[in-house]
């Protein structure tokens, strides 16, 4: 339990450092690290995410239409509530944890063990400025871009499939979608994705910079801890966001059950 609090405190401190030292992003070496991180987390992950996003979007729609015998409006509402608000950000976050979370934790743990972090200190460079700030910001931005991408693919795929399965044209579904969707849906999912990405970046960096030992065996342990804790953090943040948005409705449901 003490270990958990120590890790939580360490992650919070790291998050505070990122907020305090945001300005270092304008320094050339840090800006290059940021560009590298955005490319790795965002651009190079798009191919993988296209397939996953389309599969999940069409799977949800196909399943719900089959089970609920949904009409156009219900199918679109499901797309909006489930795919746009919930599944889109979660798929992107899970993919980012799998790819970038493990990569960041492994890379930083190796750098720490091989003395590169100490080497930065010898050059009077705060390792958190060069290694953590651009990674956290880069993962947050790339995760948001990936989320929008997933939403586009999943909603598009879902609508295409729905148009084939139920008696409705694609134009009818798209018209219904734009009628029911509000800019708040996009703001909600973008805010959530930014928080998810930042949390993944902070947690992966924390475990990378604090490996449980100085031998090479500590590297996979750091990666495992990063993946586990980042997944937990994303789930908790999702619950928090859901409470903030649907809180009164959930509270009403609990009251009714009592």
């Amino acid at each position, binding site marked *: 339990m003490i270990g958990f609090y120590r890790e939580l405190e360490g992650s919070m401190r790291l998050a505070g450092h990122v907020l305090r030292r945001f300005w270092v992003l304008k*320094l*050339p*070496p*840090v800006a290059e690290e940021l560009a590298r991180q955005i490319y790795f987390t965002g651009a190079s992950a798009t191919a993988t995410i296209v397939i996953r996003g389309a599969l999940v979007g069409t799977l949800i729609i196909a399943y719900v239409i089959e089970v609920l015998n949904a009409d156009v409006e219900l199918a679109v509402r499901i797309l909006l509530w489930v795919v746009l608000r919930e599944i889109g950000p979660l798929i992107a976050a899970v993919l980012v944890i799998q790819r970038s979370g493990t990569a960041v934790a492994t890379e930083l743990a190796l750098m720490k063990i091989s003395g*590169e972090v100490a*080497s930065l200190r010898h050059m009077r460079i705060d390792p958190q400025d060069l290694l953590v700030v651009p990674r956290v910001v880069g993962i947050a931005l790339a995760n948001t871009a990936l989320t929008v991408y997933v939403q586009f693919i999943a909603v598009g795929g879902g609508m295409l499939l729905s148009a084939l399965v139920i008696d409705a044209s694609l134009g009818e579904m798209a018209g219904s979608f734009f009628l029911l969707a509000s800019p708040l849906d996009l703001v909600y999912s973008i805010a959530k994705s930014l928080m998810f990405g930042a949390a993944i970046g902070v947690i992966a960096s924390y475990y990378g910079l604090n490996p449980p030992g100085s031998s090479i065996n500590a590297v996979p342990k750091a990666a495992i801890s990063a993946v586990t804790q980042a997944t937990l953090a994303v789930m908790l943040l999702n619950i928090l966001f859901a409470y903030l948005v649907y809180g009164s409705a959930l509270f009403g449901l609990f009251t009714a059950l009592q």
Partner: protein
Amino acid sequence: MSATAGVVLGYEPFAEEERSAGRLWIEAGGSHVVPAVSAAFKSALLPAVLELRPRKDARVVVLGADTDALSPRARATLRAQLAFLPADGGLISHLNAWENIALPLGFHAPARLRGLAPEVYAMLEQFGAEPRSLLGRLPEEMTLYERKLAGYVRMRLEKPRLVLAEDPGAGLGAAERRWAAGFAAAYLADCPEGTFVQLEDVQDESG
């Protein structure tokens, strides 16, 4: 206790037995070779000198200042005049040679990055390297000598007053060792008021 004026690097353990195992008291200026430095002495000396913090186990003097009496501001000022050159060059593995060389300046003097290339090219060529082929490579694609050279060039660009270097020739072949032997002289030609202290490892006499 000795006076610190004119002392560029001093390290005196308080315990008598440790003092006999290793102590340093180096006057400012020129190149100095500290022979037969044991791993234990080095692992005690380097953090003491590079962190510049008060120590319970030793008296440490850097560039004439006793680290016991340093304010945080004085410590930062002093640290900026001190450079450490590790045996493997101390490069960052995911940055190529150019990014490694430019890294400290990118943080501490970004304005100097413009127009830096000719200076770097000249230094690399001075030590037998081909800049065009070297600068784009990652440390894992470089030889030990190239890594040492990149670390050395990076150090020289900062123009420190005191350089603490692990043996630049360690682990090199005869030809590269000759190039590396010129590191101290080239640094002193560039910074005549500087001091280059080279720590040589204990030689294994068994073989």
